[in-house]
């Protein structure tokens, strides 16, 4: 034993280095290659390989090989019997010659003999086969001693842990990818449902066909102009699509009345925000403000809106956005009792009502968006698509918007601040 101590010290040095290598979590392939070097160098092993076990394919797939030549199989099949035996054996060295009873060593006998494979060590971590070590003859030509086998198993345990860690990581990555996809599916389903709902609401109201869908789109445009996050933009669009969901319970003849409705009918119609809130409240939305937007989309800054007559700061921000989108669509589409208004008049209306009905910074953002499209500063043709080309190309529209913007926002920083506070 005394004359073996320098050998031991050398081997323990390699073991320590291997522990470091595995703990460093470098590139996995590199770690395995280094591990094989350290193992070969620790005991003077002429050739060998490290394989990773695929439980599903029942295969030992070579991760690193040294001196095994081109003919050595890179993927070795393992049968149920082998698997069972390896698990019983545990992480201990198996003498390849003595283990001929196992199919694994029979099937690959020729390859093992050609490359002088003497030991096979199944890498078993937490009762699971994660890989295997194939080791050829020692440079001394002597058989492996029991203490050398112990060192090999200690090093094998490190390599097994590295493989096992890698497997876990891959599994986590796969799960998070699956989760992401699942979430994406849910989100898409929700968005589709919302649009289907909006269409259903609009069906009831034949004179204002497509109203909810357009309000959803205008709301989205405003949110975009305010530079909200993608999630907030989607939430805003949803609020727009569903703002009139309460109309589903209002009698069709009131909604479709081709005349100005009377007080009683009006009271009935004016219930739709609260009813909408009740309907939406019962649903779990990924976006929190959707029910509130429905409830307060007819409130005005000056407190003259309904249902609660809230004042400026009392009105949820999303409801202000939907209100603007809603009013804009009402002004720009034909109603049973009223033709759509000219674009320039609409701009003027928005300007005059900023601070009374509408939040000024929202009017600014909205008009700025229209102006940018008019001046072709964006590739977007959203407003044109929603309003029609002719309507958008009305003479004097761009100067009218510029004028309104100058009056509402002498400095651009105002709109910036507004956008920021709105996104909170």
């Amino acid at each position, binding site marked *: 034993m005394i004359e073996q101590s*320098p*050998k031991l010290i*050398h081997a323990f*040095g*390699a073991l320590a*280095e291997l522990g470091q290598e595995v703990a460093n979590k470098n590139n996995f392939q590199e770690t395995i*290659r*280094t591990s*094989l*070097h*350290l*193992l*070969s*160098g*620790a*005991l*003077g*092993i*002429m*050739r060998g390989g490290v394989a990773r076990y695929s439980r599903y394919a029942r295969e030992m797939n070579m991760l690193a090989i*040294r*001196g095994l030549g081109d003919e050595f199989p890179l993927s070795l099949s393992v049968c149920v019997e082998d698997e069972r035996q390896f698990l019983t054996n545990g992480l201990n060295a198996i003498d390849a010659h003595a283990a001929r009873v196992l199919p694994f060593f029979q099937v690959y006998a020729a390859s093992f003999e050609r490359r002088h494979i003497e030991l096979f060590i199944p890498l078993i971590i937490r009762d699971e086969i994660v890989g295997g070590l194939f080791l050829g003859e*020692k*440079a*001394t*030509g*002597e058989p492996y001693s029991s203490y050398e086998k112990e060192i090999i198993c200690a090093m094998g345990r490190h390599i097994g842990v590295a493989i096992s860690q890698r497997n876990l990581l891959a599994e986590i990555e796969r799960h998070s990818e699956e989760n992401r996809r699942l979430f994406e599916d849910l989100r898409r389903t929700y968005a589709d449902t919302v649009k289907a709902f909006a269409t259903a609401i609009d069906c009831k109201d034949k004179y204002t066909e497509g109203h909810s869908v357009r309000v959803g789109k205008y709301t989205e445009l405003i949110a975009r102009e305010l530079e909200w996050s993608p999630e907030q933009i989607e939430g805003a669009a949803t609020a727009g699509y569903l703002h009139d969901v309460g109309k589903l319970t209002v009698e069709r003849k009131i909604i479709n009345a081709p005349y100005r409705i009377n007080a009683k009918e009006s009271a009935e119609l004016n219930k739709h925000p609260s009813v909408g809130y009740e309907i939406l409240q019962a649903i779990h939305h990924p976006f929190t403000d959707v029910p509130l937007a429905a409830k307060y989309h007819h409130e005005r800054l000056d407190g003259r809106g309904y249902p609660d007559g809230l004042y400026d700061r009392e009105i949820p921000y999303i409801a202000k956005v939907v209100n603007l989108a809603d009013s804009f669509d009402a002004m720009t589409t034909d109603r049973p009792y009223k033709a759509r208004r000219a674009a320039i008049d609409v701009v003027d209306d928005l300007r005059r009502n900023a601070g009374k009905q509408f939040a000024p910074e929202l009017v600014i953002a909205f008009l700025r968006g229209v102006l940018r499209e008019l001046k072709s500063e964006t590739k977007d043709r959203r407003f044109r698509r929603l309003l029609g080309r002719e309507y958008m190309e009305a003479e004097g529209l761009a100067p009218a918007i510029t004028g309104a913007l100058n009056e509402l926002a002498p400095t651009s920083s105002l709109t910036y601040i507004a956008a920021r506070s709105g996104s909170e």
Partner: protein
Amino acid sequence: MTENTSFDVDPLVENVSPEPAVVVIAGDYLNKLTGEKIERECKDKLDAGAREIVVDFSQTEIINSIGISILLGVIDNAQMAGAKVVFSDLKPESAELFDMLGLTKHVTLQ
């Protein structure tokens, strides 16, 4: 630390006829990066017909397990090509280690 550059095969290759020999200088520290380069280049020389590989250890202070593994690779490749491996100027401590691990069985010491 900077990469070990003390090892370089090409300028030190000597072709001695009739037996073409390759002299390889192992750097002061044989690590994975320099080692694998040595191994690759030795293989290339063997493929090109070299019949003797001389590894010069005159500058080598430390040889760890990775270094041993590399040298085993060089020996294995040489043997398969029917070539001879010579270790020259080996420090006594290294010689002892090589002896213990069986490397000296496969090489000529010089």
